[in-house]
């Protein structure tokens, strides 16, 4: 090997890159690279955003859920959203923007509003939840005296995790943060709001349905009604999952029909516990849900016979559950349970 010394020594100071790619080639490569910058950036952005929502957030992979970081305490003040000027602004936004837009993109059928005529004072409205359309539909359907004085419980970890989003949500919906997943970081504003004469709109399932069917109702709303002695109005929304399911940011085209069905206000009895009241609420929700399919009287009969349960969907593969619940509602409600010609 000693004979190669000089050759090796001469070769040593020159890095290999020089020998292989001349300056010209290097410059040319750089030019190509610069030309591809825009395309490259687009490609990178697409890869980065795949699997993330429009806010750039990714859902936690299932196997990582138990390893999620405990979140630090945070609180977003919403008191300003109930000041007179902001209420007026919200009324304007809802009447001139949100409600007409919702009604133009869907074909809502609002039923049972007469049940609210005898209702006085603040109440807790509860509804099933499967779409971002749910809140605008309910707010747009409510009589004015309630629509002007209602606060909406919104997931703290979803709507109140960024200041701008929290501000917009509070302004447009008069939303207040509700902790879910058993977190006790925030003091609940709900009792405070009821004491001040605000009605509440709550979604006891805690989140939008994954497949259009209802999940288990949490006890919070019933507990609130029992402890504060306020009535609860069950509402059922049908067709909103098919109109704008989770993952969509805009309703499907074709103005799908949606139903907003108000039920009879339920008042907790003097000795009734939260679980008992919750059970009555669940029964009322089941009956309202069935009313769209069976008609009013048949749903009452089935409910009285104990044949109705919470509409949690068939025990089938997830695609079948989704398939069934994403079926558009028929353009008219179901035929009544009785036959016209059978009436006296």
């Amino acid at each position, binding site marked *: 090997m000693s004979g190669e010394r000089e050759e090796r020594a001469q070769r040593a100071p020159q890095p290999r890159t020089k020998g292989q790619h001349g300056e010209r080639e290097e410059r040319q490569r750089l030019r190509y690279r610069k030309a591809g910058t825009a395309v490259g950036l687009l490609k990178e952005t697409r890869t980065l955003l795949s*699997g993330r929502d429009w806010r750039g957030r990714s859902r936690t992979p299932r196997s990582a859920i138990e390893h999620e970081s405990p979140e630090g305490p945070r609180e977003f003040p919403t008191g300003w959203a109930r000041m007179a000027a902001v209420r007026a602004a919200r009324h304007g936004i809802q009447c001139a923007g949100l409600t007409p837009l919702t009604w133009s993109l869907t074909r809502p059928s609002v039923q049972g509003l007469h049940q609210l005529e005898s209702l006085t004072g603040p109440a807790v409205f509860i509804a099933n939840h499967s779409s971002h359309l749910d809140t605008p539909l309910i707010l747009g359907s409510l009589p004015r005296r309630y629509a002007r004085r209602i606060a909406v419980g919104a997931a703290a970890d979803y709507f109140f995790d960024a200041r701008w989003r929290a501000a917009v949500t509070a302004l447009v919906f008069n939303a207040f943060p509700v902790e879910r997943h058993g977190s006790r970081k925030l003091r609940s504003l709900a009792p405070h709001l009821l004491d001040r004469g605000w009605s509440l709109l709550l979604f006891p399932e805690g989140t939008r349905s994954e497949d259009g069917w209802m999940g288990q109702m949490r006890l919070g709303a019933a507990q609130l009604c029992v402890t504060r002695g306020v009535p609860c109005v069950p509402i059922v929304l049908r067709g909103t999952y098919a109109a704008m399911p989770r993952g969509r940011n805009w309703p499907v085209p074709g103005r799908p029909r949606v139903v907003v069905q108000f039920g009879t206000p339920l008042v907790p009895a003097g000795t009734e516990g939260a679980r008992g009241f919750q059970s009555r609420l669940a029964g009322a929700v089941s009956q309202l849900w069935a009313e769209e399919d069976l008609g009013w009287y048949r749903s009452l009969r089935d409910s009285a016979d104990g044949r109705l349960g919470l509409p949690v969907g068939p025990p089938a593969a997830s695609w079948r559950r989704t398939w069934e619940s994403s079926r558009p509602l028929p353009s008219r409600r179901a035929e009544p349970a009785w036959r016209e010609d059978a009436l006296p």
Partner: protein
Amino acid sequence: MSRPGFVLEVDERTPALLVHQGEGFRLEKFPLGTRVIYPPESLPGLRGLDGHIRHALDHPLGAEPLRELLFAGMKLTIVFDDLSLPLPPMQTPDIRGRIIEAVLELAAAKGVDDVELIAGNSLHRRMTPAELKRAVGERVFRSFFPHHLRNHDAEDRDNLLEVGATKHGEVVEINKRAATSDLIVYVNITLTAMSGGPKSVSVGLASYRSLKHHHNVHTLRHSKSFNDPPNSAMHHSYDRMAGVLDAQVKIFQIETTLNNDTFPSQLGFLNKREWEWSIRDQATYLAVKRANDLAPVRQRRALWHRTAAPYGITSVTAGSPAEVHEVTLRNVLRQQLTEVDGPSDIGVWGLPYICPYNVNSIMNPILMMSLGLGYFFNLYRNQPIVRPGGVAIYYHPLRNEFHPVHHPSYIDFYEEVLAETTDPVAIEAKYEQQFATDPWYTHLYRNSYAYHGVHPLYMWYWGAHALEHLGQVIVVGGDRRTATRLGFRAASTLDDALEMARDVVGRSPTITYQHTPPLSMADVR
């Protein structure tokens, strides 16, 4: 509270995951069902570090307090880990410097005049004065350099001493100054379970005569893995040598462990789990990625090598090497170990820009092999994350580039030896003596900043266990000709690589991606 490591199973919710690829990185969508090994989150660093150092020196394990071991007129040698640790280099002040200052404070108070500081660089390249200064700190450098702060020279026959031999006939030959000292204080950074303990003096201050007993193909093939000392033939050899050393030399070992804060806050997204990236992390990713991809290779490399890690120190332990190392290993595993349920057909690793032998240098193809098939493949306990006969997929550009000053013998090894064979056993038998004793390489090792002539062969042996274990090695984004020279295959994309791998492991392979750095070690059950 740091979260423990865990194994993610890629589902439809999983966003694209970060993969390192030389002086760059990318996001990759892995197939559904792929397992991804994440290390535990970074542990909190010790607060009041100087207090912890003083406490360790005053309350050592299995030894008297350091101040009791120092006396006027003694011969004290302080040895410290060289630039191969930690990776990336840590932000200054370096923990070695802080510990050495504490040791010297005690030595000065005791009136010790004869103090020498030696970098335990073994057959690695010498550290430059700037690198030495960075490691030991300005004050120590100013007081000792150049006469009493130097690099170990494994080819200086006059300054080597054969201390003895083990019952297996392994010669223990180390630096003479250290061997004849009244006390060796070894200052260590243990980044992986492989380092520290009996390895420190017996390797850091050794000569080729001594190293060849454990740095050989047979030993490395029986080190499964070399990050699991009880199952590593290499560590058994270190232990035997340490036994010989203990009988002759008094060693006071000071070991430290680091947390997983591998990248500075500007590159914080590299330390985070992808689904937890904030908008800011995503914007930073896009900006850094594009800027990095557009930068010329040299500038890109220079930038990466200027990046210093904001490591926190998780433990400082002092005393007798064996007892100290037990505590150190526990702390390393506390930070890195993740339990994995069985091996898979395909293992995936993203190789970063740095390995122990290219600090401020170029990661050449041999070093890529050593990092991938040596270091990363061996980041396991019990069994590899890939089954025998499985496929390893690495991400690396694998450029045919060498640093002519740092790696001269690597160039010849690549051009002459690998052109003929890639079989470690054949290479060892035919070429080791030639490269180890070549006077030109020896000259460059001693007088320039070159790695020892035999070093590229050692790097090849480093991957011998993986080469024997695996059915195929595929490098995504690698240069095809270079990959062929190494005996690997190159693929443009992960999909291509998986398609190629299916020829070896079948149509529905299981895949495990070891998400590192930050370093993770798989405890495969």
